């Protein structure tokens, strides 16, 4: 008995390394409507988009958007919080139905996911220590820059960013770092930056809202230069359910039309990020 279990497991692990089966195409929408709950994956560590609030519940812009979409579909919303790389690995296997976690639609990601709707745009900016002498982004040439690993910010710093979604504003690479350090999340990058100008990092590329949040929390950092690019952020679902995709797109369109998205953006960012500037 134990031998069989173990052999099966070992074989399972082997099969994994040898090659993956295609994901099952399922009628996700049917499951959602019959269960009456929409399972939404989001990050628990990405304030102010999604985070744990004072009552130990998930809260934030993404969380509110997901709840509003649930209301449009007429179902309850339930959140799960797997790590970012678990979500982006794809192959969700029905563990959750939709991802509302500020994902940037790119061509590579579109091979794994459908992006029914872009629901807002975040300006990405560069932060430096407040003692830094850098006045413009050009002053950071040949310096050490930090960013969240596998994020668009890291891609931008490494000059490997593709923003090919419809309506993504054009951008150019203004940063020429010597080295790019990758971090688990933006907070750890800010923690390294706060140690002092050039101690571990000279600058961090992150979203403008998270930089402003860190400044508000007393981090000795400041924004330098203008936002480097505007990142379109979309809701992601797995391929294979055009009906769910259509429903989500309709819901987001309706929320844009009736001003719900603008209101939520004002609530969490103090600005309307739901349109391109």
């Amino acid at each position: 008995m134990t031998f069989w279990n173990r052999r099966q497991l070992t074989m399972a692990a082997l099969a994994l390394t040898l090659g993956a089966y295609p994901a099952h195409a399922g009628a996700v929408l049917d499951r959602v409507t019959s269960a009456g709950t929409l399972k939404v994956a989001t990050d628990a560590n990405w304030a102010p988009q999604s985070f744990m609030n004072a009552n130990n519940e998930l809260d934030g812009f993404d969380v509110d958007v997901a709840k509003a979409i649930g209301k449009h579909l007429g179902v309850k919303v339930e959140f799960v919080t797997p790590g970012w790389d678990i979500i982006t690995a794809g192959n969700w296997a029905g563990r959750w139905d939709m991802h509302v976690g500020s994902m940037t639609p790119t061509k590579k990601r579109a091979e794994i996911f459908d992006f029914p709707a872009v629901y807002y745009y975040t300006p990405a900016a560069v932060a430096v220590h407040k003692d830094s002498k850098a006045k413009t982004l050009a002053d950071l040439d040949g310096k050490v820059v930090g960013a969240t690993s596998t994020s668009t910010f890291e891609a931008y710093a490494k000059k490997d960013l593709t923003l090919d979604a419809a309506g993504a504003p054009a951008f150019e690479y203004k940063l020429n770092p010597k080295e790019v350090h990758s971090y688990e999340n933006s907070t750890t990058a800010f923690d390294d930056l706060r140690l002092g100008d050039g101690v571990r990092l000279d600058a961090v590329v992150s979203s403008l809202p998270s930089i402003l949040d860190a400044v508000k929390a007393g981090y000795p950092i400041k924004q330098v230069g203008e936002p480097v690019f505007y990142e379109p952020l979309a809701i992601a679902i797995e391929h294979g359910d055009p009906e769910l995709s259509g429903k989500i797109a309709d819901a987001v369109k309706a929320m844009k039309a009736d001003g719900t998205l603008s209101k939520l953006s004002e609530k969490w960012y103090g600005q309307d990020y739901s349109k391109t500037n």
Partner: protein
Amino acid sequence: MLYPDTVEAEVLVHKLWFVATMFGIVLLVFMAFNMSGTGFAELMRPVIGEPSTSGLYGRFAIGFSIAVIFTLNVVLIGFAPLKLQIGIVWLELLLLFIAFFETFHLSLPFIREKLPFLISQGVVTTLYVSAISIVIASVIAVAGAVAKLSNNGFAYAIASFYTSFFRGLPLLMQVYLIYLGLPQLGFVINAVPAGILALSLCYGAYMTEIFRSGIQSIDRGQWEASRSMGFGFALTMRRIILPQALPVIIPPTGNQFISMLKDSSLVSVIGVWELMFLARTLGQKTFQHMEMLISAAVIYWMLSICLELIQSRIERHYARSKVR
């Protein structure tokens, strides 16, 4: 304890050469650091004047006083009986740690506010995930050890492949492989079972080796004597071999349990709201993650101490035969 002989000798910390060396080292170490900005330098102000301008004399004076205090402390503790010595040294190290954490300027009200949730959600999840994994891992370990010692080629091959594979991969990778990989074979398992499976398989592999070495440490004469009395394999194992092997097995197994408790934090990557996950997320919005990380560290430590105490109790139970 190593062999406690009855030769009368002066304790090490009362020998002059040792005390002098210790004094010299402490003096040099503290002279090497610039202590002029610390609270201790403030206390020395009547002797050295303004600390920041006191220069080499200031450094020497501060280092000298610390060395005197340190050496005196050690020599005095040397007079205390053994149990008291252990207690005092523990207490002093603990105070030093608390002083270290004090330098973070943590917000205690925030910790007090979050502690109930940290315990009711985080500690409970961590404990049940590790407890279930420990039980499964122990079962796997017994079976694996027997298989590795058997002369059945299949059993040996499977067991040694298993230990080699699961000891050879990082646990984090196993968590990913099981959580992301099993669904491709049609088994969709949730985060908690996936975490428990990964922990059990990984620790089962380590403990297989511990159990095997424990069983092998028993002299073959024991087997021969037992078989010659007509005992079968199972009875020999249960009545003769395992009772003698357990004292060998228990200390490393206790190690495994403690490290399992802490490694259970790896399942936070698949979104299980256990202690480590909450420690990383709760303070994030307000940038008070140091508070949460240190609280979680203290909780992990206290849980480990409980396991240590249990282990030492069991060890004492099995050491009865060695007491004179």
